[in-house]
């Protein structure tokens, strides 16, 4: 049977039931929201099941929505089945006080650095990651810069006067 939105949702709901929290068609992608505690099992199923066979992890990134209480940090997976040419998006939301989720780096080797980048920017802890440390910023940085509460500029710089920059 051809791989499309209905088939995918049927299979996921049959296998995981309650862990699939919802789905929505946004533009030309299906967004599936899952329970963060089960993400490793769901991803493993998506990768290894013969009919779904999502062999390509296009992207793994983070989002910060400070208004959603208890679901502030999101991890977004874009998956792609190269043979059937079908893509969809998977999201898992985490509370900001305890943002930990299972790693996907044993399922797709490419997830390794993508998870390190998400940790660097948002502070999402990936359990059982082989080497979870900062990748793009300096190692001793104490905050997670892409969270909404942190400013873009280095506030300690003296040469640029914020009045002239409209801030």
């Amino acid at each position, binding site marked *: 049977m051809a791989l499309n939105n209905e088939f995918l949702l049927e299979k996921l709901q049959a296998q995981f039931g309650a862990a699939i929290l919802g789905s929505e068609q946004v533009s030309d992608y299906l967004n599936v929201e899952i329970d963060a505690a089960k993400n490793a099992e769901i991803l493993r199923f998506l990768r290894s099941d013969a009919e779904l066979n999502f062999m390509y992890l296009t992207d793994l990134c983070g989002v910060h929505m400070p208004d959603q209480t208890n679901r502030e940090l999101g991890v977004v997976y874009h998956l792609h089945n190269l043979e059937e040419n079908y893509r969809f998006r998977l999201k898992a939301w985490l509370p900001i006080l305890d943002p930990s989720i299972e790693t996907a780096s044993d399922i797709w080797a490419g997830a390794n650095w993508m998870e390190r980048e998400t940790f660097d920017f948002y502070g999402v802890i990936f359990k059982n990651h082989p080497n979870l440390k900062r990748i*793009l*910023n*300096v190692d001793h940085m104490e905050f997670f*810069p892409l969270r909404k509460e*942190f*400013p*873009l*500029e*280095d506030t300690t*710089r003296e*040469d*640029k006067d914020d009045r002239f*920059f409209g801030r």
Partner: protein
Amino acid sequence: MVEAPDGIEGQGFFATSLDTVIGMARANSLWPLPFATSCCGIEFMATMGSNYDLARFGAERMSFSPRQADLLMVMGTIAKKMGPILKQVYEQMAEPKWVIAVGACASSGGIFDTYSVLQGIDKIIPVDVYVPGCPPRPEQIIDGVMRIQDLARSESLRRRSSEEYKQLLASYNIE
């Protein structure tokens, strides 16, 4: 061809001041260290190519080892992570050395007024010539090198051991 400096000529001899001769020699054989980090580095490759040809100005031999270079050309954004490395490369160079900051990012941080970018390399090392642009055209980079040549030609031989220069280095915490 370079013009001979002013001096007293005669059959088989030429007399001029030591400063002038050494200045002329230094200016016309600057060995650059291309510290190319990003987009300005590609414009540097264009400057070294056959169309704009920086080699005409004596910069034929790119030295990637700081110990053998005269001119540190910093081309591209310097992030805070890269700062200590730039300083280490600068300290390894032997006197006399000149620094040219190519591009807006090296001069002042450029369009990247962010938490991770150093707002200008003159925060950590003394700079002689700034070449603005994003990226500057090869003609502008050549103009910058020509200004360095003017500086090299007219520099006093005693400058590098003078009190003023030592204070300049001390202000950057460079020994």
